């Protein structure tokens, strides 16, 4: 059904494109009803990778970060072949991304971002923004990437590395915090940049929040849905220029209810469920020194801490359920250095660390969860023009574990990624 819908959508796009070509030639002969000038800005981005890795795809899929990402039991229960193929060893098609944007009328702008994978198309973003709010306010509504932190709002092709920092994938999942809701921002009328934003979001994020209630196989426990909007985000961003050195700082908070169900309703496998509330706080700092138009040095660091307070439900393979008061305090950071010494080349290094992983059940700390889990990355990218990029990245990852004899065992992993990213259509913008 979904596929058919998108097939129709693509057909329509092509049809429109054909009409444009037709109406363009028509226009020269002076058609009074030509619409070609109203075509929105369209661009398409293609991202491909080739990956070499120490471990097999099956091993990689069985690894996890204890207490932070889904356990291997749960992952194997959803048995998603496509998930293991994605970014597996060898060639992989990462994504295609189509951006469509235009002015709606004097009052609104519309922006749509469709994400294409081999399986289908997804509405990654689709929102409108106000054009004419007074006093420096702007309203945004629809489905969009939250502006939490420094990186959440950035699309993949803006990243300085192939992958996002560990703490982002742990706290928000692979797709970042991408929610339906509303946002109001205010830019202060000062000589320096200061922006305040608040967001009210549905809060369906499956890594930290979620709104759908759950119950176990034997219906001993039932947790109600939480009421949407479920998640509130606020942030303050500040920037100051010291000649050609720019400082950018930000502080963000995300507060929401948590309803997470990992195979609790499936019989015969280990399941987990969480019911409570989650608070996430983040602080970021960027220092960028512009040597000239082409060359710069940029230092960026971010710290994010997440606390969960509520109840954890555990179901064993015989479908017996138990529960405990649970409190999690987990945090991580990354620091990265990017050098752009030539027009077409960039060199970068990043240090990732999940430093805190404190989990308490009924007021007693469970010490089996490991802390201080690092990853080291470095990358070189070559940009023939603004529209194409080739990157090689090396990761040494010591953050992933497997479980053996009820103990977590670290499994270090080395990977080399060759990535290429190409874009056509409307001119994309440079990012800071």
């Amino acid at each position: 059904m979904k596929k058919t819908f998108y097939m129709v959508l693509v057909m329509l796009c092509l049809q429109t494109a054909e009409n444009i070509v037709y109406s363009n030639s028509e226009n020269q002969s002076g058609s009074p009803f030509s619409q070609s000038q109203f075509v929105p800005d369209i661009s398409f981005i293609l991202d491909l990778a080739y990956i070499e890795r120490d471990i097999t795809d099956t091993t990689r899929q069985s690894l996890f970060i204890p207490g932070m990402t889904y356990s291997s039991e749960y992952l194997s229960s959803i048995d998603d072949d496509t998930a293991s193929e994605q970014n597996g060893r060898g060639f992989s098609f990462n994504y295609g991304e189509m951006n469509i944007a235009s002015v709606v009328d004097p009052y609104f702008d519309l922006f749509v971002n469709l994400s294409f994978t081999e399986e289908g198309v997804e509405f990654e973003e689709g929102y409108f923004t106000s054009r004419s709010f007074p006093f420096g306010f702007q309203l945004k509504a629809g489905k969009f990437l939250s502006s939490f932190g420094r990186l959440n709002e950035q699309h993949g092709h803006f990243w300085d590395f192939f992958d996002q920092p560990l703490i982002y994938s742990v706290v928000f999942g692979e797709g970042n915090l991408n929610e339906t809701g509303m946002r109001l921002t205010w830019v202060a009328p000062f000589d320096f940049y200061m922006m305040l934003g608040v967001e009210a979001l549905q809060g369906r994020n499956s890594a930290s929040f979620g709104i759908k209630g759950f119950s176990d196989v034997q219906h001993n426990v039932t947790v109600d849905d939480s009421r949407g909007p479920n998640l509130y985000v606020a942030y303050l961003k500040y920037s100051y220029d010291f000649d050609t050195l720019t400082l950018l700082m930000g502080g963000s908070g995300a507060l929401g209810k948590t309803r997470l169900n990992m195979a609790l309703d499936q019989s015969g496998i280990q399941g987990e469920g969480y019911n409570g509330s989650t608070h996430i706080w983040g602080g970021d700092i960027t220092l960028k020194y512009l040597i000239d138009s082409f060359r710069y040095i940029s230092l960026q660091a971010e710290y994010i801490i997440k606390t969960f307070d509520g109840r954890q439900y555990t179901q064993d393979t015989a479908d017996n359920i138990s529960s405990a008061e649970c409190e999690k305090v987990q945090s991580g950071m990354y620091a990265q250095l990017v050098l752009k010494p030539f027009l077409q080349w960039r060199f970068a290094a990043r240090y990732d660390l999940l430093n805190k992983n404190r989990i308490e059940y009924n007021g007693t700390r469970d010490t089996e969860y490991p802390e201080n889990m690092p990853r080291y990355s470095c990358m070189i990218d070559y940009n023939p023009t603004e529209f194409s990029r080739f990157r090689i990245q090396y990761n040494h990852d010591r953050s992933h574990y497997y479980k053996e004899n009820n103990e977590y065992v670290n499994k270090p992993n080395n990977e080399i990624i060759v990535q290429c990213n190409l874009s056509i259509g409307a001119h994309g913008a440079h990012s800071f």
Partner: protein
Amino acid sequence: MKKILIASISILYLVTTAHAGRIKVLTSYPYIADIVQKIGKEHVRVHYLARGNWDPHTVIPRPSFIAKVRRADLLIINGGQLEIGYLPPILKQANNADVFPGRKGFLDLSSSITMIDVPRSVSRAQGDMHPDGNPHYYLDPHNIPPLAKAITKKLCELDYHNASNYRNNQSVFLNKWNSKLAEWDRKLKSLRGISVVEYHKNFDYLLRRYGIKLVGTVEPLPGIPPTSRHMETISQIIARHSVKFIIHDVYHPERASKLLAKKHNIRMVVLPHDVGATNEAEGIFSLFDEIVRRLSQ
């Protein structure tokens, strides 16, 4: 408590309205800012975004740009898609509806000029293309008067109380400019008919105006650094057309141009492309004084 609140509100009010009465003009490039300053004088407060010694195409959009757009009453751009890489997202984030394209507080200077080299077909196989034509039109000194007139007209529209001042300043500016034009025309007359090579097509309008023949560029395509094969080609062109000098800008690496100049024993002339590009080019007058001086050396 109440006193503190009142005090802080009034301080905030004072800070934000201290320059009320003066039009806050923001320009993308410093050369525009200088013209605005000469016409607006004490009635305007001018800021600009890009630095004069940087590549006008690749400007890194700093967050402070957003703050500047937020506070502007009038935004003046060069246009011709020169700002396409950095200004659209800044406008989107600055939440200032007054300076959106099409509004009263927005002026695109390229609309007062007829641009050259408008491509008949547009493809990025030709490098970083400008579909509206070559956007470096302001580097022909004869194109400055229409820009000054467009700016004056806009200032009068926004601040009609001072319209007569702006018109007076404009005529002072134009009188001085016209006498300067005569001087520059005279000095560059001797260059008519010679052949030159440019690094990037920055100075086409100037070359065309003074009958200087451009026979090639050191970059193979706009925005693409020279390859060894292209260096070979351009070297042959230099020999064949007995090129007099290579024009270079202040922001591209000089290595390739220097190499060619040395090989053929000709001059490499570094020309400022904007106010602030070199120390001598402090304003719009001295920018052209310096271009003419360096060319006629």
